[in-house]
């Protein structure tokens, strides 16, 4: 039997099949399955509060994977995610509350509607790039939010709408635990789909567009088609995340989808790692838990510094901004890269030369 503590000192693939595999070696596959099992079992033992946090992290991760497809893999910067989340949430709210459709139809429809809206705002991406595109998506954010908060008849205006939890037969996903599993299944499907997407022609084309779009066009990639497609695929997942979030918090209102949310999602993929599916998940956990940890830290310190809680909101912003800047300066490839560095270190440990 092999010594379980010995690591391979590198990955050596001798045929294409091995090179294209999602999990290059069997042990990695085993590790992924164990990890999945841990996350599937952990709600049995955790408190409702923890499970709730985990659900929020997971939903953020779905949206972040969506955004990462666009920004991390295709290189099209979008500052409009907040509004696209809103489109997803509102579509699902309108379909379930006004038309009485079931959640199981409303959620995919929310994804499709968001994909269409996303594709529409992706149309300028052919002529715009970099900064100009970022600002065009910012315009999308402002315009969509305006439409949502003004179209009173459809969206309930600034008051928002109330949603119900999804039902499956006679079972209602009321408990934190059941909703966690719903999120978990969607997250796993999203992750697997995205991992596979980048093994396919379309995914490779996305990456080529990111690396050098003019060169990609010369090689026969239809830039317009793939850029818009990236917007569509990305927005689809963001819409799904929006629908899940709406049914979880059971309320949608315009201020939940402000530009702050867009920036938070950008921070997630940046901190997690641009162009990394697992990075999006790490980043989602990191950014979602950051304010929670900060708040409990302030509560612990409140005995020593009683004024601290008054400045909590300001402090949150400062810490959030600092995290972004420090990551950009010291590890621009994010948590995914840090994790990889740790693994690489132990691959050759203790003789790392």
């Amino acid at each position: 039997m092999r010594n379980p503590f010995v690591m391979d000192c590198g990955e050596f693939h001798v045929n294409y099949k091995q090179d294209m595999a999602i999990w290059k070696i069997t042990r990695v596959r085993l590790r992924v399955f164990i990890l999945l099992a841990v996350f599937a079992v952990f709600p049995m033992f955790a408190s409702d509060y923890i499970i709730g946090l985990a659900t929020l992290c997971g939903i953020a991760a779905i949206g972040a994977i969506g955004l990462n497809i666009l920004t991390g893999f295709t290189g099209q910067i979008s500052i409009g995610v907040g509004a696209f989340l809103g489109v997803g949430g509102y579509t699902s709210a309108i379909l379930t509350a006004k038309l009485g459709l079931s959640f199981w139809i409303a959620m995919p429809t929310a994804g499709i509607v968001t994909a269409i809206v996303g594709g529409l705002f992706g149309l300028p991406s052919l002529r715009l790039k970099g900064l100009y595109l970022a600002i065009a998506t910012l315009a999308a954010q402002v315009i969509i939010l305006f439409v949502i908060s003004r179209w009173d008849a459809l969206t309930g205006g600034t008051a928002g709408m109330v949603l119900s939890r999804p039902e499956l037969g006679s079972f209602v996903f009321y408990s934190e635990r059941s909703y966690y599993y719903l999120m978990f299944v969607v997250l796993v499907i999203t992750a697997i789909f995205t991992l596979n997407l980048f093994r396919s022609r379309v995914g490779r084309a996305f990456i080529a567009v990111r690396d050098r779009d003019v060169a990609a066009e010369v090689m026969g990639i239809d830039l317009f088609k793939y850029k818009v497609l990236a917007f569509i695929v990305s927005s689809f997942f963001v819409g799904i995340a929006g629908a899940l979030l709406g049914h979880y918090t059971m309320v949608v209102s315009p201020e939940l989808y402000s530009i702050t949310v867009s920036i938070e999602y950008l921070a997630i993929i940046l901190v997690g790692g641009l162009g990394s599916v697992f990075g999006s998940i790490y980043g989602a956990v990191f950014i979602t838990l950051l304010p929670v940890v900060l708040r409990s830290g302030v509560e612990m310190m409140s005995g020593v510094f009683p004024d601290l809680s008054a400045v909590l909101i300001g402090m949150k912003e400062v810490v959030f901004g600092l995290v972004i800047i420090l990551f950009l300066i010291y590890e621009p490839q994010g948590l995914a890269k840090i994790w990889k560095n740790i693994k690489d270190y132990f691959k050759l440990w203790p003789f790392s030369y």
Partner: protein
Amino acid sequence: MTFFLQMLVTGIVVGSVYALVALGFVLIYKSSDAINFAQGEFLLIGTYVCLTLITAYNIPFAAALLIALMFSAVLGFVIERIVLRPFIGEPVISMIMATIGLSSVLAGIVHIIWGHETRVFPKIFSEQPVNLGEIVIAPVYLWSLLIVVVMLVIFTLFFKYSKLGIAMRATADDQQAAMSMGISVKMIFAVAWAIAAIVSAVGGILLGNINGVNASLSAIGLKVLPVAILGGLDSIPGAIIGGLIIGILESLTGGYLDPLVGGGLKEVMPFVILVFILMFKPYGLFGKKEIERV
């Protein structure tokens, strides 16, 4: 007709402030290829410093303005040195996220120090409205317009005749060539950030005199984006003309269309214009077209 003129004048005044803030924005883009999402926070900090000097320390307005501007310049210098220097030559998204992070940090600091409530400037300009034919204008508007025009003239002269201004234009034109002629490009970047902070502070103080000061003033930082895009990100005359166009359109929308839809359209209008402009002229009215080679 009177109503129209009234709206037009308001638009021109607000637009001129936009033009001023957009000028700082364009300067940074021209010199260092960075979009500064923290422009609104520069504006906020400059305004609050000036306000605090006046209300808490009873310093006369002119002196307070001067100190606030000096403070802004130092702030711009320091921020360029600490935060932005590592990102020279990095991909666009790094630059965008760095300034977004910066804006979050600055906004947090403003919240911690000055809190959330709206404050008003003590009345500096007389309140007696001025009659110009049929339209009535508050003196603060006239003063704003005057100050902005003076600032714009100063900057035009600065870029045209001063050594530093010429060096900045050279750097914007071709960094490598400028460097080989002995211009310190890093110094130019720092000056650009300092100027951007100064013009934002002036813009903020003027708007603060018109509308009062609170944290939402930093939203101007976002509104300046359509202005800069409309004129072309790398064109200084573009920023001025774009500012006036957006200001006037915004004011007219607020006057004529907002009552029809129940308000709020005024805030969105610049962005709607922005989308249309980008569809037809991706580099704005006066922006330089980039030619790409593989």
